[in-house]
Each structure stands twice: as C-alpha cells, then as structure tokens.
C-alpha cells in the first residue's frame, strides 16, 4: 500500500561527521501521510539526521529529497513545505501567541486571511484561547511547547519533523500534542518524530526506525521489528533493547 503513496522524504547515503561519525551513509524513505518514529539510544544520530533534513546542518555526503525537491540544491522550496519543532521550544518572550503565529505566517508567506483562520483553529485545538493575547514570558514549558507547535503547523506543512516534542510535558499537554499530530496525519500530512518514550512510538507510529551508531539498524511496524529479533509478543522496549544490543555486539 505504501508504495502507492508519494515519497515525503528520501535520504540517500547521508553522512555527517563531527569529532566522530554521527550519521553513517544513512538511507531512509518516508511516505506521505505516514507517522514515522525514529528511536535510538543517546548519541545514535537521530537529532543530527533530522537537523540535516530541516537545513540546520549540511551533510558531508549524500542527498536529501523532500516532496521530490532536492533540499540541498533548493533549500528554500524544501523549507516551504517543512516544519521543525525541537524539545526546547524557541519562542519570543515578548510576543503573544497570536503575534508569534502572525510572524511565522509572514516568514512562510502565507496569505493573511488563511493564516489567521488556521491560527485561530490551532489556538482553539491547543487550548491557548485565554492566553492568545498575553506575552509568552510568563508561560510554562508546556504552554511554550504548544505555542511552538502551533507555529510549526500554522503554515500547513506537508512534512512535520519533531525532536522529542513530549519531553517535560504534563499528561494533559502531551495528549493535546499527540491529538494534534494524529489529526495532522489523518489530514494527509507526514510526521517524523524522535522519542525516548517507546510507548508513544508504539502507539502512534505507523512505522518505527531504530537508529544506532549513525545507521538505521531496523525499520518497520512493531510486528516487523519483533520478527527481526525473533521474539514475538514482546514490548517495543524489549525489542528495541534487543536490537541495540545486537548492534553493539556486532560493532
């Protein structure tokens, strides 16, 4: 079925080296309308991979295609259809959520009436209405993350990339964020998310990619991953630990 879908993101032979090799000739294909979770131990190369996709880092080798556009050759066109949200929400303290969304819409050149309607919708979904015209400086981390998420969605991106978006959020806020992301996937968007919370990956993702040592060591549905380890009826946590242990042993 997925072969009928357009490719939302394709990485071919992508490498990045800092002091050591962080991402090692990584190949990755993610389809439109898919919720993809990227999991892996600390320092596996998850965040580096995603930062290269959104243009925050330039790969040393390889190619990145977003919606059929070569993101390295035409980064502006690729960024037009992409949104990025990190675990540490970066918003402007002195702007209100409403003004922040207006700023983001301006950067993405979204027509004001459409952007405003979308902003109001997101503010409603995320329960930000009472605070829409208050400056963000007094907001809690959860509120900030909601504002940043609204900013990531206000320009209606085809590909949403999130790095640990649920870190430090309370249960209520985390549920709101997950609902908004599910809604986005139902509407045809593609979501790629890194997470250390394996239950979230297990329950939300269509496919899970396990990355270790800068390489994709396993990929597929939870069933696919279980088959790969040869242990059925285990949780994603057990499967994940088994896969990583195999990789460490092989290395």
């Amino acid at each position, binding site marked *: 079925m997925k072969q009928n879908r357009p490719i939302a993101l394709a990485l071919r032979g992508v490498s990045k080296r800092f002091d050591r090799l962080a991402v090692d000739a990584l190949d990755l294909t993610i389809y439109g309308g898919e919720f993809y979770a990227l999991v892996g131990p600390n320092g596996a190369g998850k965040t580096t991979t995603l930062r290269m996709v959104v243009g925050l880092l330039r790969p040393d080798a390889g190619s990145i295609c977003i919606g059929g556009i070569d993101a390295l050759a035409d980064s502006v066109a690729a960024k037009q259809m*992409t949104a990025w949200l990190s675990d540490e929400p970066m918003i402007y303290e002195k702007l*209100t959520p409403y003004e922040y969304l207006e700023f983001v819409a*301006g*950067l993405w050149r979204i*027509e*004001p009436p459409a952007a405003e309607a979308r902003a109001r919708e997101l503010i409603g979904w995320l329960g930000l209405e009472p605070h829409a015209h208050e400056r963000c*400086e007094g907001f809690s981390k959860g509120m900030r993350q909601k504002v940043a998420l609204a900013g990531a969605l206000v320009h209606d991106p085809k590909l949403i990339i999130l790095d640990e978006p649920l870190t430090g959020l309370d249960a209520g806020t985390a549920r709101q964020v997950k609902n908004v992301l599910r809604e986005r996937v139902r509407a045809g968007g593609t979501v790629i998310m890194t997470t250390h919370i394996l239950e979230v990956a297990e329950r939300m993702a269509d496919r899970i990619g396990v990355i270790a040592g800068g390489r994709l060591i396993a990929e597929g549905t939870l069933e696919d991953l279980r088959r790969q380890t040869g242990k059925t009826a285990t949780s994603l946590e057990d499967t994940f630990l088994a896969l990583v242990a195999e990789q460490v042993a092989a290395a």
Partner: protein
Amino acid sequence: MSEAASLTWLARHEFRLGWRDWVSLVTAGGRTRARNAIIGLIAFAAFMHVFAYWTVANYADASLSFDTAALVGITGTLVLSWSLLLSQAMESVTRAFYSRSDLDLILTSPASARKVFAVRMGRIAAAAVVIAVLLAAPFVNVLTMLGGSRWLAAYGVVAAMGAVATAAALALTIGLFRVVGAKRTRLIAQVVAAIIGAAFVIGLQIAAIFSAGSISRFAALQSDWMLTHVPNTASAFWWPARAVLGDFVALAGVVAFGFGILCVSIALFCRRFGEHAVAAAGVSSATVRQPRWSPGFRRRSPSRTLRQKEWTLLLRDAWLISQTLMQILYLLPPALLLWVTFRDGHGSFVVLIPVVVMAAGQLAGGLAWLSISGEDAPELVATAPITAHRVLWAKVEAVIGMIALIFAPIVAVLMLDTVSAGIVCGLGILAAAAAATVIQLCFRVQARRSQFRRRQTSSRLATFAEAFSSIAWAATTALAAGGTWAALGPAAAAFAILGGVWLVSPSRA
C-alpha cells in the same frame, strides 16, 4: 581550617565563587583565552598608566595648602567616580537578589541564613572596593611616583568610596523592594543604576553648557558661581578631598565613616536580604496582555516581518531599552549645546559631530548584537523558507532603520544651519553604524537576548574593534565637516579596522 558554617568558612566559600565567576567572565573558560586575557590586562594597565600620566601628572606636586578650587575639582571627580561605583554596586546587589542558584540550599540548610547573607553582602562590597581600587590605581600610582608617598592615601579614600557605594546600593535596592515590590524592583533598580551612572556626568555637562557654553564637565565645577557657593575649606564636607591630598586625619575619618556605614548596613539589612531574595525567587513574570493595533494578520514580506519583529521585541523590553538606548542619554548634552549654539548663531556645532557619530556607532553595535546574535528562536528563522542572506540583510536593515530614526532629528537641526555639515554628519552616522554592524556580523554568535550584558566579554576583539571603528569614523566626519582632506587618514584607519576584523573573524573560518 575554619569550622564549617562559621563566618570565615562561609566567606571563603563566597570568595571562591566570586573569584571563579570573575575568571570565567574574563577567560570564558578557555586556556588560550586566559593567556590572551592576561596579556590584554597587562596592556590595558600599561595604557591606563600612560593615560593617567597624561591627565594627572601636572597635579602631582599639589601642596597641602587646600584652596577651594582644588577641593572642588577633587570632590567633583570623587562624586563622579562614586556615582559610577554606586551604579555598579546596584547592579551587583540586584543580581544577587534575583540569582536563585543556591537559595534553596542555603535556606534548607542548618546554617544561619543571616550569616550567609551577611557574607554575601560583604562579598559584593569587596568586589566594589576591588574594582574601585583597580580603576584608581593608575592615577594614584602616577601621582605617587611623581609627588611622593602621601598620594597613597588616595587608595584609602577610594576603598571607603566603594564601601559607601555598596551600603547605599543595599539601602536603595531594599528600599525599592519595600516600595515597588519584588516584581518590579529588578527592572527599576537596573534602570536607576544606569541613570545614576550617567546622570552626574550629564548634569555637569548641561550645567557647563548653560554657564560657560562648553561641554566640559569641569567648566561647571570651576565656575565662579560654584566657587562662591561651596562650604568653606574647613568644613568636613571636604574631608575626602583633603584625604586624597594626604591629610591623614581626614583619611582616618573617611575610612572609618565608609567602612562603619557598610557594617551598619550589613547588620541592618542581612535579614531583609534573605526575605527579599526569597520574594524575588518566587516572582514569576507578570502576565502582560497585549492590545491589538490591527484586527487581523497583516500582509508583509518576510523581510518586513523580520524587521518588524526586531523593532517590536526591542520596544517591548524595558531592560534592553535601558541597556542599549541609555547611550542616547549621553546625546542630551550635545543636543543641548547644538540648540544653544544654533540659537546664538555661533556655528560651533562642528565640535558636536564626532560625539554624535561616536554615539551612533556604539548604539548600532549594541542593536546589531541584539538583532544578529541575540535571536531567541534561531532554529525557527533558520528553517523558514528564506535565504540566510535575506535574513541577515533584514536584520541589518532593522538596525540601520532604528539608527536613522534616532539620529534624524539631530541631522535635521544641523542641516537647518549648514546643509553640508548636516549631510556629512548623516553620512558619518551611517558609516559608523554600518561599520559596527559589519563587525557584529563578522563576530556573530548564537545567544539569547538576555545575555546582552555579556556580549562585550564574549569577544573583546569585537568590542575593541567596534570602539576604535566608531572613533575613526567620528574623526573622519569631524575633519570632513571642517573641509579638510585630512579626513582621509582616519577614514583609511576605519577601513583598515574593518579589513582586520574580516581577516580574523570567526564567521570567515
């Protein structure tokens, strides 16, 4: 070894923290930076001694026969320096109140909180005294070398000034806590500190302009009016000045008063210090509702969106305005002199041009750092569908636009008198602002706007380049306004500075 939680034990702990803060501020943690910082400090000390020789060498032989003019001059200089010390001490006290790093640990430990806070206040006082002594050292050393050991008494006066400044800062800040509350004290104290630092200099200059038509702050101090209205030379009012000149009885009085008042303040305020620190730690940012000027989203290009964001963020941040635009306060005396001169038709405004250009360069440097390096959402901007070049250009436009808006009235008044002088001044302002912006571009880093105060320590090279570039453009503009080809000299120096900056800039690597 001192007993745990005793005053000496706590003092050792506080002073160790203070020393490490200072070292990290100077060296930014790098070994190479530490070596460069030491070389820089030695060079700075040598330069300050040369500067001190140039300014005070003539006074080294001043006798102990105190005349009113000498006492007024010395007292004025002491008050001027003290206002700066008070400003610095207020900053330190405010920072200590709002830094909650170890507050929970202190208050939940069995150690006496009063003792801990008394030691902390002592550390602030010690820092103020050390800074005062270090800044005065070149002048006192030169005077001692040329005029004899009696000038060493000045060290005692300076130390006492540091102690009194801390006592006053503690009283002022705790007074603010009681009057306006913990929520507002931080901002108000920082603004008051900045105004105190500038007000005395500016006040003297304004008095000088009205009394002598000069911008020199010493003209007012030496005016006939001043000399006839001050107390007679036997008054205790002159004790600090007499102590500086080597009167050891006066010195003993000044030192006893200075450190006595500090001890009384610490004893009085150490309990309240803890109470207010707890109140400050519990302060969350107040909710500020923002009125909407327009009912819906506005149609703007990405560049205009970025420019608008920069201006909005600056205008909404009273603390940043106080830190960056405080330099505009220094433009008040030149503007006043311009107005007085213009009214009298003297045409001597040309002397103002370098002051204005220098201020524009310095202000542009601060604004450029905020706009280019102080981006609170760098990843949002970097992942937006606009080129990095376009983003930088929009930020530069925001800086130059702000400078143009601030300095346009001064240029307009100049042009009303002499069109050419106005045009030259305008061009000089633009050149100085553009050069400062280019320097900030070359040394751009990723930082939060709240780290603005640390910008000068993150790259001293950028700070010095910015200052020398502004001086070079100020000289160029003044000479160009005077119609001399000699303007090409400082202009070449200004370009050489930019070239040097480009060669060593980290962003080129």
